[in-house]
């Protein structure tokens, strides 16, 4: 599996994503600068966590307008896999590659903690190595992870099996509608989620629950 990690100004989980990808695939990902208008030939594009452009406008809003995002959209339109983590998820909703929006956390505070989630869907490139209904723990670290969409959109997401990760009961860290932690695009090739799978691939760092996502991608895309 060949991968690329997009680097926006003030992305700050780009290195973490690259380290996890290299550890899991044995290959260094391509690091792609936000001003580049073309992507290298890759199977997976990762939009990493961070504070792209300072997130001084709505989180992810500036990044969604960058040159590289046109190329990322084209990659997604061709059916290429795109994984947006944390700020990357925000960029995906701002780019309309995923529906809905990520608002300020309900308690208005940044939150960093491990959260339990259930894997709700395994019929996709990102989670096929997990068991349906499996409970996993990934850390969250964000101030704007409160997922919102109108009722019609939420019903559609649920109906089409596009809610991939759901916070366990009582674990919702940000007030997200229906405890949604991560969703798929209509074509199921774009995943956005607030928790950080790349921070849980090393047992020394509090768990290996994130490995399943990289293993799924390797199996699907290699």
């Amino acid at each position, binding site marked *: 599996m060949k991968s690329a990690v997009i680097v926006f100004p003030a992305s700050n989980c780009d290195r973490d994503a690259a380290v996890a990808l290299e550890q899991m695939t044995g290959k260094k990902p391509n690091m792609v600068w936000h001003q580049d208008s073309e992507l290298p030939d890759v199977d997976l594009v990762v939009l990493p966590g961070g504070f792209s452009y300072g*997130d001084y406008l709505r989180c992810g809003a500036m990044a969604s307008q960058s040159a590289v995002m046109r190329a990322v959209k084209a990659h997604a339109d061709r059916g290429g896999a795109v994984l947006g983590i944390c700020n990357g998820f925000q960029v995906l909703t701002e780019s309309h590659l995923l529906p809905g929006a990520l608002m300020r956390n309900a308690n208005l505070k940044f939150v960093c903690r491990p959260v339990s989630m259930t894997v709700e869907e395994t019929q996709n490139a990102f989670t096929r190595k997990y068991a349906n209904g499996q409970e996993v723990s990934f850390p969250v670290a964000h101030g704007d992870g409160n997922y919102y969409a109108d009722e019609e959109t939420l019903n559609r997401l649920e109906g089409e099996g596009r809610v991939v990760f759901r916070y366990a009961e009582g674990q919702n860290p940000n007030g997200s509608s229906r405890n949604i932690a991560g969703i798929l695009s209509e074509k199921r090739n774009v995943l956005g989620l607030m928790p950080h799978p790349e921070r849980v691939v090393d047992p*020394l*760092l509090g768990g290996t629950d994130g490995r399943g996502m990289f293993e799924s991608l390797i199996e699907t895309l290699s």
Partner: protein
Amino acid sequence: MTQITPELVAEHGLTEEEYGRIKRLLNREPSFVELGIFSVMWSEHCSYKSTRIHLRKLPTKAPWVLQGPGENAGVIDIGDGDACIFKMESHNHPSFIEPYQGAATGVGGIMRDVFTMGARPVAMMNALRFGEPSHPRTRHLVSGVVSGIGGYGNCMGVPTVGGEVNFHKSYNGNILVNAMCVGLARQDKIFLSAAKGAGNPVVYIGSKTGRDGIHGATMASAEFSEDSEEKRPTVQVGDPFTEKLLLEACLELMATDAIIAIQDMGAAGLTSSSAEMADKGGSGIELDLDKVPQREAQMTAYEMMLSESQERMLAVLKPGREAEAEKIFRKWELDFAVIGITTDTHRLVVKHKGEIVADMPVTALSDEAPLYDRPHARRAPATGTPAFDAARPITASLKRILAAPDMCSRRWVWEQYDYTVMADTVQIPGGDAAVVRVHNTNKGLAITTDVTPRYCKADPYEGAKQAVAEAWRNITAVGARPLAVTDNLNFGNPQKPEIMGEIVAGIDGIGDACRALDFPVIGGNCSLYNETNGEGILPTPAIGGVGLMTDVHRMATIGFKRAGHAIILIGDTKGHLGQSIYLREIEGREEGRCPPVDLAAEKRDGDFVRKLIEKGRVDTVHDVSDGGLLVAVAEMALAGDMGADIGVAGLPDAIPFFFGEDQGRYVLTASPEEADRIEGELRHAGIVHAIIGKTIAEKVLRVEREGEISLAALRTAHESWFPGYMAGEEIPPTN
């Protein structure tokens, strides 16, 4: 031309005598710009004029110290060509006036101190002191400071891995915000600030210069009064986005060999960076202010030289390398301008609109800055062994202590900091020391900040010693070898002999402890005049310590892990209740002698514990500090969600035994057979110790003859206070 009047001199925080000294050094009256430059460079904050004479007594050398005090941060050798660069600095005064921005720019400033030396910041710590919880401003200040630290550090993508939060009424009008940054570099890629050589371009990089923060250093060198609110405009505004770009751009430039010297523009901005670089390089600097990138129109030379706008750096490049450097900064969309040149005149010359507005010898700002041996009076240390009510039930007291503002869980605070970004945090907040892995290796850096201000108030010398010993002990307790410290000396007005006495005794205590523990001071910061309306804070010499472990897989943590293991107490328990948390929280009194530290026993016992961890013989260790033995055991039980059966034969008095704060103690667990072997070795080494009980699967803390309490009850007490308080629950005044 502005007329220099005695009133103007006084407004600049300069005494009549100091002004006379300026005139002698220049052989004339200073210009208005020069007066401004002298005022910041000779401020307490920049010149250390009250403390320099005493700071010289601190031990600063060891074979592993690559750079001691005097640069932007200290540097230690951590093997394999790697270097660790760190420093702690205060941002007290701005944080009291404007907590979010004050704390945020404190974080930004200390990060620049570290990355200006070529290091990538890998961990942040902080030491925070607030007024009593019932004070009407405290919630607002806690909320603002914590979100400011998080707001800046989280955006930078540097994990904030721990720190201290305390409450005391002496900080009601003057909170303390001390931030520490730890970075990593290769030893052959360390950058210093000496602007050596003449004819080299001086370049300005980062944000534009605005009118914010003018005279921040002078503000930080004066007491507060009722009208401090009016000083809000002197607080700088932080932009972590620009700082993140500046960090990446600087590291990219540092990968080339274009830089001769580089320094961040911190307190006193362009003035101190240019003067200090010229001073250290033995050169001169000529600046043309028309070339300085400016945020606002019509800025005067005075404003530009004194602005403390954030996220700016000054560098001296090798001639001819400007274009290469400029390309890097343009890529990161930052300002870049050649604003001057180094000279061989040993003078700082500032030009603006074709006129020379300042022209002064560099040494007048550094070596010739005032140096005071201020009168100091040592107050007699508090003495005595306080009385206590022996009938109070132990388990109820334990629960109350674990719920006290100074003792409860700080989860509400640290969950607002991204402590796992960079994917190397192997010990998260809540343990004895945070541990971050050295990227791509098995090595780990253990980091802690410590001081117990109530001990320092009772006895500034012993209290300062204790702060160093506790930092050393916390690093030891995770299994790391303590290497060096940075100190952040927070005190009141040094012109009062009793305060100066606290400062001198504190420095002596730090020096003696650091010498005995082979734990040199490689940098630091003094924050004086921490007073409001004449009321000083508790003396607070915060110590930031760093240690190294060679294998993070052999790290100890505090949580109980296996049931049926022996609980071993190492160190001598005399039952010292003077100045203890027990006395304050249960008996409602702050009195008595503070617990003394026996530095020889400290070293011997700590070295013993560390060896057990390094050999993989124990992995569960906690030092005994605030609250005493039973609090330490309860914290271990809560962290591991596993109970304990505690029983000690022949106890004369349970309360002092379980809640006394005798120093130099550790609690650890081992299998019964391993515990036997360890006991034999402890006896052989002549180290005082006892087996005080065993871990049990049941989630309860049981104390023989004294009763029991469930972990659930303790956890609720421990976790509830902070979120409840911040949500607005009523808190009765402490006294």
